[in-house]
């Protein structure tokens, strides 16, 4: 039981990371109707910025804050320079355009930081596990990720549901033209939303950097999972993204933890340890397929436009 709790915490931590990515993705998709494959590049940039600034300032926290500002600026610049050309066009054009951005950013990072990748080292106090319950040990840094993501989720909720800018964002999601007609600068609003999405992606990247190290293309695999999350959660819904991210994180981790042992009961040890990882990574996609069949709008569909 204690072991199950520990594994669930691992799942929650993965879920938190996915939520950070999916929230930005779903905001941009839901409000701006833009498919942004380059979201993973912003995740990567967040990690590279954090590693660079942390090395320059000698402080993890200062590096992280500077990295957030830098990703915000890059995100807004990308919106102004590239994304504006894509609004109102077909989704396939979005895919093509943002895929081009992925290649662009990968090469840019290779030019600036070189191909070898970077390390964002944690302060040595973080290199330990804490006892969260009697007998349940959990890496302190992963706990920090869970707590700080929860704080970000709360902030995001307050921002979208309780502030004037959040009201405008929601209004823009339901009826773009009307918001524009009421004298709101919709262009600026879009730039802000895209910047917000970029910051969320950058935050995910920099929080994950000490665990996974910083390298070119690090955002591409995780982006697939983030898309799965917004499909399960319902496109445009932040609440849906949160629930779906937790679901996907838990299924992936708990599957990895228990399926191989389960399969050993009716397969040879060798076959089970080979098939186990393959099968557990299929679980998420089986869930996605099920959702698409029975609830194609996702678990929490955003209000229809």
């Amino acid at each position, binding site marked *: 039981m204690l072991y199950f709790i520990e594994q669930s915490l691992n799942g929650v931590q993965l879920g938190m990371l996915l939520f950070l990515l999916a929230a930005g993705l779903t905001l941009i998709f839901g409000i701006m109707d833009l498919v942004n494959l380059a979201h993973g590049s912003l995740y990567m940039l967040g990690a590279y910025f954090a590693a660079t600034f942390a090395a320059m300032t000698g402080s993890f926290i200062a590096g992280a804050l500077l990295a957030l500002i830098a990703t915000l600026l890059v995100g807004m610049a990308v919106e102004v320079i590239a994304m504006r050309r894509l609004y109102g066009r077909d989704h396939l054009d979005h895919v093509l355009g943002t895929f081009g951005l992925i290649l662009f950013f990968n090469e840019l990072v290779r030019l600036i930081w070189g191909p070898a990748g970077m390390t964002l080292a944690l302060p040595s106090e973080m290199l330990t596990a804490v006892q969260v319950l009697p007998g349940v040990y959990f890496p302190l840094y992963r706990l920090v990720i869970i707590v700080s993501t929860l704080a970000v989720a709360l902030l995001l909720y307050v921002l979208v549901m309780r502030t004037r800018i959040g009201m405008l964002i929601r209004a823009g999601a339901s009826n773009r033209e009307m918001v524009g007609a009421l004298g709101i600068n919709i262009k600026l609003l879009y730039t802000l939303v895209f910047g917000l999405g970029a910051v969320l992606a950058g935050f995910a990247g920099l929080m994950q950097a000490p*665990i996974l190290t910083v390298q070119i293309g690090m955002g591409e695999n995780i982006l697939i999972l983030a898309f799965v999350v917004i499909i399960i959660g319902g496109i445009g819904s932040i609440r849906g993204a949160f629930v779906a991210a937790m679901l996907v994180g838990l299924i992936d*981790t708990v599957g990895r933890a228990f399926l191989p042992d389960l399969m050993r009961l009716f397969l040879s040890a060798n076959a089970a340890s080979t098939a186990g990882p393959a099968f557990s990574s299929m679980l998420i996609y089986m869930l996605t397929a099920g959702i698409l069949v029975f609830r194609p709008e996702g678990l929490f569909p955003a209000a229809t436009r």
Partner: protein
Amino acid sequence: MRKALLATAALLIITASPAMPQQKTIKIGFISTFSGPVAAIGNDMRNSFELGLDHNGRKLGGLPVEVIYEDDLFKPEVGVQKTQKLIESDKVDFVVGYIWSNVLLASLKPLVDSQTFTIVTNAGASQLAGELCSPFVFSTSWNNDQTPQAVGLYMNQKGVKSAFLIGPNYAAGKDMLEGVAATFKGQIVGRELTRWPDQLDFSAELSKARAAKPEAIFAFYPGGAGIQFITQYVQSGLKGQIPLYTAFTIDELSLPRLKDLALGIPGAQEWVNDLPNEANKKFVADYKAKYKSSPSFYGAQTYDAVGLIDSALKAVNNDMSKKEDLRKALEKADFKSVRGSFKFGPNHIPIQNFYLQDVVKQGDDYVLKTVATIVENDQDKHFQNCHMK
């Protein structure tokens, strides 16, 4: 009509050229990974091969050399395409390289079918040492299970009673875990294979290792994944609790990024940068001077390929058509290896020593040091399954 005549003339010239009496250059096709997160390995191999050619006056068997580098993109299906391209359209004399066992296994058939002499400088798929061995394929590295077998022996020496084994789910990962299990006398309390190459978060597996309460963990994670595994192992607070033993996880490429995290984590290797022989001293010193970094075992094995090819070409006076003689010359391995002595077993896999290496801090640098010889003149256990035709 004139066009047709011209075309015929051109065709004649093209078809006539291979009939030139003597081969003027030696063409080498080199396959490794030069892009993505594991490009550091491919670059180290290329650097070492180039350095080897420099040391040889840019010649092999006295003939000028042309090397065609191809990137396998870390994927078996790309590796086999590039291999076919090197054989069929570049018509290379030798193919050198291969980091990954799964890429090598996918590429083996075109190499063997075309009777192209191949020097594998890293990948050590167990099948290659056994049933898939070929008269045309040689390895300057090892068979996958030899290094972990040495780690298993060392764990016995340290009196480890139980162990948890973990590695990636592909050809080499399976061989490695088999390897430790073959020599380790204690109890194996868990055996995990993780998704490869995209799984980089090992939280679930590390929790599992903690719950299994072993006396030691054995891990095999080559390239960037090794950095991630060790980082997460330390972050989970396990470093002080359950010692880690490794194969191919800590090397000169990962060490500059792991730094303190890698201190005190032992591994086994057939080559360590401080091996006290002249060839090795020259290799390591010149590599550092030329590339401003330290070579890894990937590079050392690839550097040896230069000497091996050169010695064999000299023995047959550069006559590539005498395949049987060339094979025999390669089998003699009459060159100065950076490992000191070097000889092949009947399956063209080296019979060699395996050393215990440890991470030591020297000033601001972190280096790998030879601590002891774990096993001498080790031969892989698959050679009896090899029936060369």
